[in-house]
């Protein structure tokens, strides 16, 4: 049973990691705590549901489509809305992303009603059986996807021009400006990428849960904790932090009781801030070199 618990925690951690990567990236690069992140997850889930119910597309087929659309949506929102407020400081960006979140969530509510949807596939709850351990396929694929996305994103950030521009902006905005980087476009691209990944997480989540317009909301606090845990702006940190949190939650369920998982999550947050505020894999002041 212990091994099953660990597997559960690991797989849950994969989901957490996937949800957090984009959030951490945006925070690290643009210094925006993106409260609207949860609504991107929601949009991804509904996108997957729409494509499944109208065009019979499975989640893995609709994944690239939804991610592409979400990139455009995120790019547009950042460029037109959030960019205008960014120079006014953290509080304003909090307020505006909160507003964006409200608008998007309520738009979803109006369009789709509060009815719960699900993408039910024939293989929805089946999985591998390794001895006495059950490993559900969908959760495993989320874990794998998280790793794949992390690798792709890392490649993007180090090998492509846009990616390097993003890293440059995060390290030193003024120097990047001097090098001819269009900061606005960098910010928008980062945000778009984050939205795309969140949308991807949403697509896969549509197969796991009966979801309503608020499905993303429950993940925001976790994303916050994991970002701090793993280190601001660090991609491996997001995954590692996610996995760690998943494991902590799983073990807490067994040792202290399932009611304490939230308590533990925030206890971890406090501990990290006390003892290693840059997070496990974060560098001090990464992304903080602007005001």
């Amino acid at each position, binding site marked *: 049973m212990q091994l099953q618990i660990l597997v559960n925690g690991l797989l849950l951690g994969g989901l957490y990691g996937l949800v957090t990567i984009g959030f951490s990236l945006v925070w690290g690069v643009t210094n925006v705590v993106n409260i609207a992140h949860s609504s991107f997850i929601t949009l991804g889930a509904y996108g997957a549901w729409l494509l499944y119910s109208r065009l019979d597309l499975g989640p893995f087929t609709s994944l690239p489509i939804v991610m592409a659309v979400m990139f455009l949506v995120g790019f547009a929102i950042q460029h037109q809305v959030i960019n205008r407020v960014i120079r006014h400081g953290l509080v304003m960006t909090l307020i505006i992303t909160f507003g964006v979140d409200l608008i998007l969530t309520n738009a979803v509510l109006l369009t789709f009603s509060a009815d719960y949807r699900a993408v039910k596939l024939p293989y929805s709850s089946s999985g591998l059986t390794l001895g006495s351990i059950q490993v559900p396929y969908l959760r495993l694929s989320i874990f794998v996807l998280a790793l794949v996305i992390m690798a792709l994103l890392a490649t993007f950030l180090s090998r492509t021009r846009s990616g390097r521009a993003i890293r440059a902006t995060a390290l030193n905005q003024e120097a990047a400006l001097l090098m001819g980087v269009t900061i606005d476009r960098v910010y928008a691209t980062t945000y778009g990428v984050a939205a795309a990944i969140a949308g991807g997480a949403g697509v896969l989540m549509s197969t796991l849960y009966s979801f309503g317009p608020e499905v993303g909301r429950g993940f925001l606090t976790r994303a916050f904790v994991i970002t701090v845990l793993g280190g601001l702006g660090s991609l491996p940190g997001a995954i590692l932090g996610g996995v760690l949190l998943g494991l902590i939650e799983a073990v807490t*369920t067994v040792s202290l009781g399932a009611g304490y998982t939230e308590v533990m999550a925030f206890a971890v947050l406090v501990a990290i801030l006390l003892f290693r505020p840059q997070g496990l894999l974060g560098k001090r002041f990464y992304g903080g070199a602007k005001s």
Partner: protein
Amino acid sequence: MFSFKWTRTRAGRLLATLLTTLVAVGLIAGCSKSEPKPAASPTPAPAAAAPKTMKIGVAVSMTGNFSKEGTLMKQGYDFWAEKINAVGGIKVGNDTYKVELVYYDDKSDTTTSVKLTEKLITEDKVSFIFGPYSSGITQATSAISEKYKIITIGTTSNTPALYERNFKYLFGTLPLAPTYLHPVIEFAATLDPKPKTAAIITPDNLFALSAAEGAKAKVESLGLQVVLNEKFPMGAKDVSSLLSQVKAKNPDMLLVTGFFTDGTLVVSQLKELKWSPKLLAFTISASIPDFRKNLGADAENVFGAEWWLPNMKYEDKFYGSARKFADDFKAKYGIEPTYHAASPAVSGLILQKALEKAGTLDSDKVADALRSLELETFFGKIRFDAQGRNVAGQPGAFQIQKGELVELWPKDIARGKAVYPRP
């Protein structure tokens, strides 16, 4: 245009101010459209003796965690309001009052609901309050209505703690929460072979915990052993570790006293773990149609208990039989009603009877009238005790068989046989 250089001139600034004002006004106007307006009750055409209107306030969860249940409640209230207005309204003494329901969305949040209840009473000046969704929220909002001496009829609020405060203006239509799974447990005890062990899991919420306590007491009183009794956080996205623990204990019965999202989560995660107890029972979620729709075949043979089901053999003169109410409701809204809609609908009927008896809108007299009522309705029997509890009602147990709800207990409403153990 977006570098705003044109605002550097006087004319430019003027234009900018004008545009901003227009946009702001437009937004406010647009927002106030989505702001709560009185529900669309049929506006009375100018009648011979211009009927008066009585306002009833409802702060209910139209968004948030409880949006599903809240929407069903609103439909139930609307259903009653339309029906009563169609026959001219409620006769109170020498006047006839049309009913106007004033709605606000409390976003499934207690603090918001409390503020909205205060707003309904102080600003909208409603005469009565129909309850919000869930005991937790009703506990808070009823404290406000009690302060202002306005009657609240709680339609989905049945945690015992609410009725232990000596409130004079609170009434609840549902039997108390601890009895929720009693019919399932009582039924299980009649099965052969009789189940020996039970596990109970519950989200951390006033209602759910109360139902779990009642279930535990009943299970133990019938000689079964409770092998696991755990809480998990409200709105949890993953209970696989908890369920792994349950699986390890291998109980005959698993009782889950949660809400809709918990129910669907547990069923799919149990399937992932490739284990099921012989008897799986839920409060609330099992009777909601989306449960069967979203889970498909996985929902088969799940047990549930309900305060009311369309095929229960109850009836009254206003709505007809439970079945007729359900059919009329379905004709209007396209879905079968659950108790979330039926309880609100009956609350209107109860209020109407009390008003007719009291002959006035005065809260004290209406409260006394409510306490003196003994009704048989399509929802079941209604009789309030001194604290406002409906002591005449009782829930019924059912099982999902081939996508249908089949009532199994109490015996006088039983319609079929159980499939046990769960294949």
